[in-house]
């Protein structure tokens, strides 16, 4: 007997549909590609395959791709299996076929191939599909080719396809390097010889790690909750950011920062501050000398795409659309500002297409108060009625969204009224607490 416990918390669940493309890039991205990629996170994905092909078919397919002599022995003694070999064949065939178009000119083109190869393999469910994606990604003219071995290769059985794609995803850089060597040796007219490779371990259920575009929940927490919550409170108190000391503004805008230590009676001060300002009870932050403790809300979000179906099934929001089908590119030009622009600088970045949806789930901790619940409602209302953007470059028109609320706690409406009434009734005290940095405690906690 298994005892199943599904966490019981009050949810604010919504679906945000973007009406303009979304730009959201990872500050840590260091890929040497000529476009800035959309933020990506690792994800475990199950590739379903059907039947395991016979050994003879795999051996026959390996034999159809004779290898230059100097690579043959290395490959045979490398410990690599046939799926690794097929990954190299895939790239070697691509280089061989399209190099005539001047595609692979210089090392940077191989770096580019490595990056795009990985994304093509991640998107695809078969080698056949991956070939098409890679042609698109590398912007080559598809053309026709007469190559029986390659035709058979591209139409390899599904389970072998999944294993090969797995090898490409996990070893893209090595695969490209070996494929390039193969191509160079072949160009030097080295004799070719047929090799045998060990059979891969094939199963009918393959779990692979892929890097998929994702949205940062921390970004959602800021843009949908913290910042609109702050604007709502400041409006209710008839204040604006410029009225506040920097550290008070920072506390509400980004959580603030510790500046010194040694404060005493922290527990009492923390309780007073969190009770006086429900938004801080909800989201926490740091005064000059102490942290306000854990926040009373947990936020997460998932782009609505089939890669996230495991999580989305929990909310009844599964889909068959792949996130890679929603990826698009924007190209822009930065001008130098001169009267005659002699050196405009083009730049590009990935976006998710308009129509992309994001499921946002916010969960209140069990002892979040009614006023804190009201603060969430107020933040959401301000977000929906305010700028309603998520992600970067909103000034250029990116990331405009339309939010549809799916689930609210039963008391969301009354809690909002109670919160607004609280802000009105305690307006002077709360205003003064912000302006003098005491946060109503009678002791200056923010300088």
């Amino acid at each position: 007997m298994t005892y199943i416990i599904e966490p019981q918390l009050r949810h604010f669940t919504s679906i945000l549909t973007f009406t303009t493309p979304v730009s959201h890039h990872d500050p840590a991205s260091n890929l040497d590609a000529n476009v800035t990629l959309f933020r990506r996170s690792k994800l475990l994905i199950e590739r379903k395959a059907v039947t395991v092909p016979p050994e003879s078919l795999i051996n026959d397919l390996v034999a159809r791709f004779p290898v230059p002599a100097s690579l043959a022995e290395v490959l045979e003694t490398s410990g690599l299996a046939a799926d690794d070999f097929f990954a190299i064949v895939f790239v070697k065939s691509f280089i061989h076929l399209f190099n005539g178009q001047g595609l692979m000119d210089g090392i940077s083109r191989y770096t580019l191939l490595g990056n795009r190869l990985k994304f093509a393999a991640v998107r695809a469910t078969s080698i056949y599909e991956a070939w098409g994606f890679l042609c698109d990604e590398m912007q080559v003219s598809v053309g026709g080719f007469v190559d029986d071995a390659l035709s058979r290769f591209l139409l390899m059985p599904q389970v072998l396809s999944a294993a090969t794609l797995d090898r490409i995803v996990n070893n893209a850089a090595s695969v490209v390097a070996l494929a390039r060597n193969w191509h160079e040796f072949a160009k030097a007219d080295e004799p070719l010889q047929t090799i045998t490779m060990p059979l891969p371990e094939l199963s009918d259920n393959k779990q692979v790690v892929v890097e998929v575009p994702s949205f940062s929940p921390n970004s959602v927490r800021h843009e949908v909750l913290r910042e609109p919550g702050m604007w709502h409170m400041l409006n209710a108190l008839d204040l604006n950011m410029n009225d506040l000391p920097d550290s008070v503004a920072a506390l509400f805008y980004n959580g603030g920062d510790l500046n010194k230590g040694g404060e005493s009676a922290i527990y009492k001060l923390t309780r007073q501050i969190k009770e006086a300002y429900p938004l801080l009870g909800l989201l926490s932050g740091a005064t000059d000398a102490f942290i306000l403790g854990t926040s009373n809300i947990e936020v997460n979000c998932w782009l609505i795409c089939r890669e996230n179906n495991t999580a989305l099934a929990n909310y009844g929001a599964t889909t068959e659309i792949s996130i890679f089908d929603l990826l698009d590119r924007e190209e822009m030009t930065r001008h130098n500002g001169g009267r005659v622009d002699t050196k405009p600088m083009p730049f590009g970045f990935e976006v998710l297409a308009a129509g992309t949806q994001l499921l946002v789930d916010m969960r209140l901790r069990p002892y979040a108060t009614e006023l804190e619940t009201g603060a969430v409602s107020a933040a959401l209302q301000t977000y929906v009625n305010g700028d309603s953007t998520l992600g970067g470059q909103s000034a250029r028109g990116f990331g405009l969204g339309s939010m549809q609320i799916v689930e609210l706690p039963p008391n969301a409406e009354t809690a909002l009224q109670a919160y607004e009434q609280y802000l009105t009734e305690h307006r002077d005290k709360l205003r003064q607490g912000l302006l003098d940095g005491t946060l109503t405690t009678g002791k200056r906690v923010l300088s």
Partner: protein
Amino acid sequence: MNVILLDELRDYEVRYAALPMQPLKITCELLAPVAHYHNVHFDGILSYAAMEEATQGRMVAQSSDYYTVPLPIKTVWHSGLGVPLHAVTDMQPHSSNVQDVIYYHRRALEPTMTKKTIRTTQGRHKEKRTPIPASVTSALVCYAYGNMEEIGRLLQPMAAVGKKHNTLGTVKRWLITPVEYFSFVDKEHHARCPLPLAALYGDDKMPFDMIMECKHLGFTSPYWHWMSKSTCVDTGRYVSKEHLSLDLVLR
């Protein structure tokens, strides 16, 4: 320094002492990556849940004193300072586990929002990007010797685990399954959680070679508190079978 039992938790201590206990496997199914610098400690999660419930979310003041939290898990040993070791292992990835790094971006106040010009490249308003190590896995698993119903009840509000749980470590559901036996070690006799040498071998029989292998680690919740720390065999390290004075297996 004292070991403090809050008044609000005295009732828990009495109730838990009378509960029937059994070996359990606890699975935490996840919907998001889990951020953690060390293993996720299941007794830490239960302690948080019990403390949050007992204090109605108020928790306690920061203090150098050690607050002990009764758990519906068997206590197998007490340190010389009175700190308990519970029959529970660390949470480990269920199957595939991929390490990732998630960057937290602390936004700088925009200078236009304030009267003063704020420097975002240095000082307290510096824009920060903090890397957080995270595990991408479908579930975490641990073992315990405890009371299934009470553990399940305490887990009901626990909807996220690990560091930065306000945006990461989202829990889909918890599964608690009775198993044949509980063990502090795996089949290769490697520790499944930090185990104090004093608990394993007694104060006077610590094998010298084991001491050289060990680290000063927390062995019970709160793991950061100095009273919770001792010379321990770390998770994944071999536990010598000689001179053992602790029953590593409970049925």
